[in-house]
């Protein structure tokens, strides 16, 4: 087997979608307050089990990730969002 085949593999970009630039939707759209009473908006930040999504997936900046986390926990306290769920979306 000639050596040439694996060099071809080296410059093959492994994951296409990761190259898509992630942005913080709060800074982009100028949202300054995360309302804990608004479930549709909060659903974007939790996964099917109701867990809060990490920043590396949602791309939000640290400042707004904390606001989202506080809002989600308040919504859970008021039974607007469940603590654990399956197939939430």
């Amino acid at each position, binding site marked *: 087997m000639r050596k040439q085949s694996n060099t071809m593999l080296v410059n093959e970009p492994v994951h296409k979608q990761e190259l898509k630039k992630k942005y913080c939707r709060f800074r982009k*759209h100028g949202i300054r*307050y995360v309302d804990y009473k608004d479930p549709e908006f909060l659903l*974007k930040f939790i996964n099917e089990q109701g867990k809060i999504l990490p920043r590396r997936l949602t791309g939000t900046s640290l400042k707004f990730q904390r606001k989202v986390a506080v809002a989600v926990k308040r919504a859970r*306290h*008021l*039974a607007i*969002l469940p603590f654990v*769920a399956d197939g939430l979306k």
Partner: protein
Amino acid sequence: MVNVQQYETVFIINPALSEEQTKETVEKFRKYLTDNGSTLIHEDNIGLKPLAYPIQKKNSGYYYLIEFTAPTTLIKTLAIEYTRDEKIMRQLTTALDKHAVAYNEKRRQGLIGKKRNEEAK
């Protein structure tokens, strides 16, 4: 001058109550707030909504929201008042910073509504 702050309180009333009992509970807290020197800015009768998980073996609750300005000392006694009343299943009082106040203002004029959710997508 007592330090006055803007707050928002949401409480869930037991759904098994009759109509006027719920009204009476809401009235009781509104009176409690206005008596102790707080001015009510906005009230939102969200009404009966299903809960995400059962509270006290109930699957739905009567939500009521009050936005008010009050001296900071009132909040502690308000919380005690809530816990004393067993018709209230759950409550949450939050302080509003300037962004929250602006947000509530815009929401009342209907600017937020669907538009912001599309915009935030």
